[in-house]
């Protein structure tokens, strides 16, 4: 299996191939998200004057990294669509969507991850306990 098929393949072959593509894409997405998170942390260090706990600031930066990741992922999707031949874009075929499942899972997963983290962050802000982690 060549590497371009892993990223830009539009033809459904079989389930193991789909699972493999899905795992690969998840792995790469996690790596990209981690890189973005790291970049955000280093690019926007916590201001010393504002007494925000480090845990909060890291959580907040992670929340910021998720939309940034979505932007990067959207750029990938753009290329994914534009590099495909029109004959390959069979929007009426269910197998077409089956083949797009890894991208859809990541898209939805990131949004769900954002919402979960956001609500967790808000909850921790409202906590009266000493330890906010």
């Amino acid at each position: 299996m060549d590497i371009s098929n892993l990223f830009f393949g539009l033809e459904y072959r079989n389930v193991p191939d789909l699972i493999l593509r899905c795992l690969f894409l998840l792995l790469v997405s996690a790596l990209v998200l981690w890189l973005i998170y790291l970049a955000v942390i280093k690019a926007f260090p916590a201001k010393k004057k504002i007494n925000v706990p480090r845990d909060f600031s890291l959580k907040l930066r992670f929340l910021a990294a998720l939309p940034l990741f979505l932007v990067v992922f959207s750029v990938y999707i753009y290329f994914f669509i534009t590099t495909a031949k029109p004959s390959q874009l069979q929007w009426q075929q269910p197998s077409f969507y089956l083949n797009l499942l890894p991208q859809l899972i990541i898209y939805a997963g990131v949004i769900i991850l954002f919402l979960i983290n956001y609500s967790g962050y808000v909850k921790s802000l409202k906590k009266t306990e000493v330890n906010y982690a």
Partner: protein
Amino acid sequence: MPKPTIIMGIGTSGLRIVEQVQHFYYENTGRNKPDHVEYLYLETDENSYPGITALKNEIKRVYLDLGDKETMINSLKKDARLDGSWLPPAGETGDNDAGAGGWPAFGRAALWGFQNFNQVAKSVSNAFSAVANYDVKEGDDSKPVVFITGSLTGGTGTGVFIDLAYMVRNLIPDIDDVFGLFLIPGLGKEGGFSGKETIYCNTYAALKSLDYFTSKRNGPKYELLYPNGSSAKFEKSPYKLVQIISQDYDGSVPSIGTLDGLYKMAGLYVFLNIYGLREERMRRLVDAWQNEHMGKYGTFGLSAIQYPKAQLEEFLAIDLSLELLNRWIDPNMYYAQGNKIQMNAARTGILKETFIHFEKLLREAFKSLDTVEVEKGRQIANDLSRQARIINFKEHQEESDYVYIWKLFSSQQAGNYYEAIRHNIKRAEDIIITGFHELITGSVDRYESLYLARMQLQIMIEALDNCLNYWKNIKLSGQQPKWEAMLDEQIKWMLKKRYKSVFEQNNVLTDRLNTTLELLKMHLIANKLVAIRNNIVEGDFSVVTFEHNIELPRLKVLDEIISIVGKTVGKDERQKDEKQLNVLKARKAEILDDIQDNSIPILRVYPSNSFKEEVKNSNHRYKQLSSKSIPSKNDIIGEASLWTYLSRSKDTLNKNLYFDCISQFERDIRRYESVKDMVISDYVQKEPREAQKIATRALYALAKVNPDQATTFRDHMYIPKLVIGQDQPTINRVIEKLVDDMNFNEFSNDKNGVLEIGGLKNILVFYAEKGLMNNNNLFNPTQHLRYIRDLEKLYHDTPRDRGRSPQEWHIIRMPYIKFQKEEN
């Protein structure tokens, strides 16, 4: 040329007279005394003190301690050198508890007892030294003049007045001019002695004793040994001349209504004597004495027309003081940048500001602990990141990270963060105390409202409560076991997810260690905050900082200050145990009473014909000239801190407030010349009838004489009868107007009838000395006072009514004369 002069008041009456002298001198010169005069007063009542004056009170108090009469008298009796035959029985207390208890014998014993004699001798010598160097050109005049004054009614005056005169003669060699001015009681409104028998008996005893030493027929008799070992032997009478005055006038003129009025007249007399009258009197009396037209006793008539400038100034000063003190204790309003603000309306803003102040304070206090050294050179705040690295990289020797962190923060370990913070917690406490102090000090200084400061302190308590409640909610407490439990949770949390994946584990752990350190600070300061809160709310004792002794403000202190300021204003009625309290409103009423007292022979006149109008005009002028629409603390204490001033000493606050307010405002009123002078002769030109009425009162002596309806006073060319004023033309205008318009020619405008005293402003005085009777006998109060025979009878009848033998009565009342001799 004025002579060096010592004026000595005996007892409370003596003090009041000397105060009046000082007052008159201040009115006319702006000073309390001239350089050649010293004021002293002797007192047996420990609660009697000189009152307030605009400038430093120059009256020196000499306290005759009668603390333990019994011991003192027994000790005098045991002294074999002394003649103790006059001493009263040791076990008795007198007619009352105050001072000499109304017994002349106790009064005399007070002078002799304990260290009192030495103290009086020292005071007289010091006063003499102070005036002796006064530059007098004529050699003969270098001997000082001594005026001794007081009343012959109580125990102190009647007990001391003869010894004191001889003591002065003994201490100041060759002194001749020792004069006495003594007040005796009048007949009273009902003309009887009922209820005041002992006072009249004391007067009788005093007059008899004085005459015993004064009358020529008895010859020399003052020969004794003083308790300090010095001896005194005199052949002359104690006083060169004794003036006797009472509230009663001779003739049909109504009496002076109050004792204060008489003090005023006595004060005016002594004041005039140190201001030029004595020289004129002596010039004339020399001839009177040589020709036996004057003896050792005298009295006088005295009246005046006065524009009461000093009273006006004091009244205005009190008005301004009241305005200022009422500003300080106004529960509803305060001033900010000249605007009056409703306190309730401003509460929300004040609450917000005060909460912010509290938070800032707490942060500062906590921050101060960051620099605490856990080891030499290792400050806690900087040590945390090092510890985080040690933990994250397992560079410690402990069995686990948990144990390592526990040892850093546990109360059960020594040499760790816990111990370091605990040992330095006073530092944080001091910052909080200082912060509270600065908040209240700043507020009181800036807004001059004690109720506003009180509100702020209450808000601070609210902020403290909120803080402590929050800590309670997060299960934080000052108790060690609870801290240990919390620490366990903290460590577990600290060691959880540390963001190693993004290489933030050191920062995260440092941050968590820091959070735990903050919690440790809270745990250790919690009890201190509770103590601070309780001290503010209900503390009886002050909590102070380790350095600089800065005091934590307390509600009780504020309430106490508010109460004292209120009492000084006169918001509440004076309680029985607060006789010594100085009350502005009471003083204001006293001035009004004095101004409106028509029974004293001083006619008060005003340019606007009304005292109140004068006060209003002067107040307006003061505010205009000083450009001060609202009085402020700067008028009283300048730039000094008002809080420090008010909280310094509660015991003296009332006195200080009263004194400082009146004196400082008076000073400013004088500086801005808010009360203008008045030319009295202008008034006489307009109202000659009123002027004549008041001048007539000076023709009558201030003592009722003529017991046999045959002898009364007569005038003589050698006996002074004067109009005293600022300058000759003014006096002449007055005399001429009285002669021309009223046909009143009792006072002449020749050189013997006029006394010009340059500095005498706003007053014109009529003075007539008395001492010669119309049968050419010399005045003697033991013969010529109207009630002298009644007094004699009363003196001899009263002991029987009081269950005492004549001898016991004599020992108590007449300590200067041996019983047998008096009987003879």
